């Protein structure tokens, strides 16, 4: 299994290189990071513009620029930012750290919701619960995440105003002035996570729960579940031990496939709640045509997606004895 994992990681490297290259070319060709500088009023001296051009390696051909960048990354240098004071490397990792909290927590909540609702819906097909769950599933499937996040934020603000106290945090990923010991800060961070997590989890769980319901239904109607019932096992044991265990296998694949869209959802959610996370970093970088910053972001995001897909593959193998990593 270790060999399998290593081989998979090894295969991912060229994919990463090609995809970062494609994005590098796209961003480089589509925008000129010097535009804001040139457009400045009064116009800066040509010497300044030239210096900036050299600092951003714009004097080199695009292939050479990319080569510079990718070799630099291997040494921990993520290239110069349009904002001369920013160190892309240290900045982007900090930002992703903030975002990772939201993504991990939201995914855990969404998965628990999806499995619970999917299993209950399937076991009580066509019951009131099933219909209600299906309705809300479709509703959240059709809900624009930014809109729902804005509504939640508004609800939080209204509650705060009504109560006259800060019940929900609606802005930022933590309080600006961090006070108190570790636990106080931990609580502060957790408090800021509540609304964004609800928002991201609810707009993500629906597709998974529909999927879990369908695969659970299929398993519940399988011959081996019928044989398990014919053994005289209690219904709950059959559901948990025989049905759920098998129905979870396909969910791992689907979850892995959706990681990219969760990341997208996180960007939107962060924007609404004004987090200084990876989302804001990316959006600012795009607006500044900051090629190296965008590249750094995409490299980390793609690596994250590839790693989680690998984890899902390994999990799949653990859950299903038929899979052999040959």
């Amino acid at each position, binding site marked *: 299994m270790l060999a399998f994992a290593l081989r998979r990681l090894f295969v991912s490297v060229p994919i990463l290189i090609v995809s970062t290259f494609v994005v590098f070319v796209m961003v480089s060709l589509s925008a000129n990071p010097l535009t804001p500088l040139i457009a400045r009023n009064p116009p800066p001296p040509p010497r300044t513009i030239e210096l900036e051009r050299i600092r951003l390696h714009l004097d080199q051909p695009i292939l050479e620029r990319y080569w510079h960048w990718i070799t630099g990354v291997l040494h921990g240098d993520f290239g110069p930012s349009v904002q001369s004071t920013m160190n892309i490397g240290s900045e982007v990792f900090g930002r992703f750290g903030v975002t990772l909290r939201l993504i991990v927590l939201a995914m855990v909540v969404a998965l628990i919701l999806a499995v619970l609702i999917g299993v209950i819906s399937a076991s009580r097909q066509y019951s009131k619960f099933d219909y209600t769950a299906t309705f809300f599933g479709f509703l959240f499937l059709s809900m624009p995440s930014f809109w729902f996040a804005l509504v939640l934020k508004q609800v939080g603000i209204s509650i705060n105003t009504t109560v006259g106290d800060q019940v929900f945090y609606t802005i930022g990923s933590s309080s600006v002035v961090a006070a108190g010991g570790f636990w106080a800060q931990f609580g502060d961070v957790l408090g800021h996570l509540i609304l964004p997590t609800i928002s991201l989890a609810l707009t993500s769980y629906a597709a998974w729960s529909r999927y879990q319901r369908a695969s659970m239904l299929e398993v519940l109607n*399988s*011959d*081996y*579940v*019928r*044989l*398990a*019932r*014919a*053994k*005289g*096992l*209690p*219904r709950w044991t059959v559901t948990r031990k*025989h049905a759920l*265990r*098998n129905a979870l*296998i396909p969910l791992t694949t689907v979850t892995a496939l959706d990681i990219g869209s969760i990341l997208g959802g996180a960007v939107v959610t962060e924007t609404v709640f004004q987090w200084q996370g990876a989302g804001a970093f990316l959006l600012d970088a795009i607006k500044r045509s900051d090629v190296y910053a965008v590249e750094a972001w995409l490299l980390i995001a793609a690596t994250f997606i590839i790693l989680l897909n690998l984890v899902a593959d390994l999990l799949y193998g653990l*859950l*299903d*004895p*038929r899979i052999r990593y040959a």
Partner: protein
Amino acid sequence: MTQNVSDGRGGDPVLVVEDLTVQFPTGEGVVSAVRGVNYQLRRGEVLGIVGESGSGKSVTSLAVMGLLPKTAKVSGSIRFGGKDLLKCNEKELNKVRGKGIAMVFQDPMTSLNPVYTVGDQIAEAITAHHDVRKDVAKKQAIELLDLVRIPNPKQRADEYPHQLSGGMRQRVVIAIAMANNPDVIIADEPTTALDVTVQAQILEALQAAQKETGAAMVLITHDLGVIAGQADRVHVMYAGKVVESGTVDDIFYNPRMPYTLGLLGSLPRLDVKTERLTPITGSPPATQNMPPGCPFSPRCPLSQPICDEEEPELVAGPNGQHAACHFTEQVVGKDPAELFSATSADAAAVPVAVDATATDTETNR
């Protein structure tokens, strides 16, 4: 009770099915899958149930196990161990399932859970009914694997179903059925999904399991060949009803219902010299919104106007044999080819195949 078959073995019946009907409401009308089935099973006896797909034979057995989907409407009674299983709740049924009545399903490729070892799946059947430690159950599971003649049982017990062949898997399913020494084993087409070469071995294993546990057995199949070697008595089902019942000899040598005769005509035989197989033309009726009259009438060479008006009852004949036909006397002593040739336009196209594959030959082709 309309039946009282006096042949076979003596003693009180272990399982009595009376007037069992099963209906499935669907968007396009109510499907009557089983329409009043009666049978009794005595200790140690093997009852064969024969019929085409759609004749209701599998639904009957699933009804006995209480494993029909909730949408099914079941009526009649199924008496086992002093209880009517149709009136039992889930908890009481779970005490019967696997312990009182065990079941062997058709397809061994899908009947075992792919994510657990076969040893665990057998042990689970034991722990479901006996308060024993897991390692004890596991040891018993290995013994059971040995009983159904799986080589290297100790090693095999730790393997997953996908590592076993179809025949081996069916042996595992039989081992599961034997695990709690049930009074009744229902084998639903236990050999249909298997290679012909393996079928005989599985039937042997079933027989051994039945001897070992002393259980009575219901053997459901579409293959008269399987019935001939195994069963004591036979019920022939058609369109959700028993249309003929009797001992194996009576059914094979003295059928009293045209459908049975037709089944025999489509079976290659070594003991009687026949030039051609005689198929029954047509298909069984759709069991939703059935027209009145005998359901076999559209395919029956003896069909008369009365057959489309009145459905014949199952009436007792000689030797406790029962048949449901208005013209049962006209069937007696007839040769299948004689009776069915008139209706079988494509009969000539089916040559007799007297080889191994013949046992698998379709009953209705």
